[in-house]
């Protein structure tokens, strides 16, 4: 039984974590909100003044914002489609009987452990480079013009790179979910005369759908903040062709030193992420009760 004494102790033990996270969240976030109402450029210190919602007005009517919003949606959407569809198929395949299953599993999940800057640079230089990349060699070997991926299809190229990093994550989680499906239940259904197809649609699919939802939500949180892959490959360009919201805010605040405008952008990013987070938290919370 928890005594009053242990309850107090418990509260004491929990407080450092809570206080630190509270500080980490509230201090900088309220500073960002405060900055977003100021005209504040790091290049001209001492000239800060309150300008109301003007930063938001500028940020939200900037054509770069719409480009970045569109790119963010395409990047998140594209990677989600590739990784969930690919992940489901791969998980179903890896769940089949085969030789060397453990090794294949290791091969498939390896890209997830590669740091973003490495995977982006390896793809950029050794595969997508129009002169000495492996794709260029492949193209000229079959007699077609090499394609400069990052110059002519920058966003698509980044989607490919990011999808390569996250496909293992989706596969691993879906495979884990698949393997936790009770095989006795499946066999019972088989004994009762359920065919292969009905077993799949009435038992496997509902079981997987929960895991798919988790994969989609968690990936969305991370994918909204893709940064390193863009920084080392295209720098958001050409123009704003591969700039997402995260990169736009970074460019505005740390490259153009526009603290006010960057802060407004940061708050917009927080609001967008929150919309996703609400759904994710609700799902995980439900699981906590079960």
């Amino acid at each position: 039984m928890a005594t009053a004494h242990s309850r107090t102790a418990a509260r004491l033990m929990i407080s450092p974590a809570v206080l630190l996270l509270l500080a980490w969240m509230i201090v900088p976030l309220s500073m960002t909100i405060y900055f977003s109402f100021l005209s504040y450029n790091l290049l001209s210190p001492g000239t800060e003044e309150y300008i109301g919602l003007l930063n938001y007005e500028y940020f939200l009517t900037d054509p770069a914002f719409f480009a970045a919003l569109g790119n963010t949606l395409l990047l998140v959407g594209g990677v989600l489609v590739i990784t969930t569809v690919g992940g489901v198929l791969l998980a179903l395949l890896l769940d089949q009987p085969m030789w060397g299953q453990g090794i294949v599993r290791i091969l498939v999940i390896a890209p997830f452990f590669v740091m973003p800057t490495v995977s982006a640079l390896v793809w950029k230089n050794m595969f997508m480079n129009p002169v000495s990349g492996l794709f260029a060699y492949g193209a000229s070997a079959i007699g077609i013009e090499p394609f400069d991926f990052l110059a002519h299809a920058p966003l698509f190229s980044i989607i490919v790179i990011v999808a390569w990093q996250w496909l293992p994550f989706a596969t691993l989680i879906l495979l884990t979910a698949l393997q936790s499906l009770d095989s006795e239940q499946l066999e019972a259904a088989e004994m009762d005369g359920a065919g292969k197809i009905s077993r799949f649609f009435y038992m496997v699919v509902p079981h997987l759908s929960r895991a798919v939802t988790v994969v989609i939500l968690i990936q969305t949180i991370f994918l909204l903040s893709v940064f390193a892959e863009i920084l080392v490959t295209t720098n958001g360009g050409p123009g704003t062709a591969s700039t997402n919201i995260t990169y736009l805010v970074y460019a505005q605040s740390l490259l153009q030193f526009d603290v006010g405008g960057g802060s407004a952008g940061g708050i917009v990013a927080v609001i967008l992420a929150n919309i996703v987070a609400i759904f994710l938290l609700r799902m995980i919370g439900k699981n906590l009760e079960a």
Partner: protein
Amino acid sequence: MARAVTTRRKAAFTLCAWAIGLTIFFPILWTVLTSFKTEAQAIADPPTLLFFQWTTENYSEVLGRSNYFRHFANSVIISVGSTILGLIIAIPAAWSMAFVPAKRTKDVLMWMLSTKMLPPVGVLIPIYLIFRDTGLLDSRIGLVIVMTLINLPIIVWMLFTYFKEIPGEILEAARMDGATLWSEIIYVLTPMAVPGIASTMLLNIILAWNEAFWTLNLTTTNAAPLTAFIASYSSPEGLFYAKLSAASAMAIAPILIMGWFSQKQLVRGLTFGAVK
């Protein structure tokens, strides 16, 4: 009832899975192979897969020229340091939430999780300015602090899900025998919790090692870990494929190995216990 599987079917699945697995793994394999080529062979047309003059000169050159050890040491200090600091803060918190749950425990857990969902750009400017004004910019201690804070929710959550699985009766038995709170933690709980703590540690070292938003924005040279060091190859220097490959291979090897050992924990940690 074991289902009979024909050998032919099994062979087909094997072939298919291996083909896909090798394709997905190929960029990593190619990086490792290229790291053993000379620069000329690395861009040779046609490319050679295995039959080239193997050399280790790229490794010695990367190690000799670019302060590689310093960046490697930074990565180790930042990832291990932040994980240990995080565990010190998180273990008591997770323990009390798992064994002395209060009415608000669930809310606290969910709130901790929600901090993880705050996009980093939302706090980039204040953190950057605070770091600039306190001299933490480009310092290892600064990055250890940031990395601890961004991974703290995951550490607490993972530990919580592990601690939850420890049966409460054992604790009650210990209390009946007169164990105090602290001896309970030290002699009863810790031994049972070690596997969970180890898994948590492993996953968080991996996450911190690969983190590339804060490391790129808050470091320049001094405290730059491998993520930031490799990013410096995005300049034309990156066209030296063999050296880029050698630097990359060394940056990912330790974590790749740790990652392979922690597949299961990865699922639990990254889905916050929603998929086990």
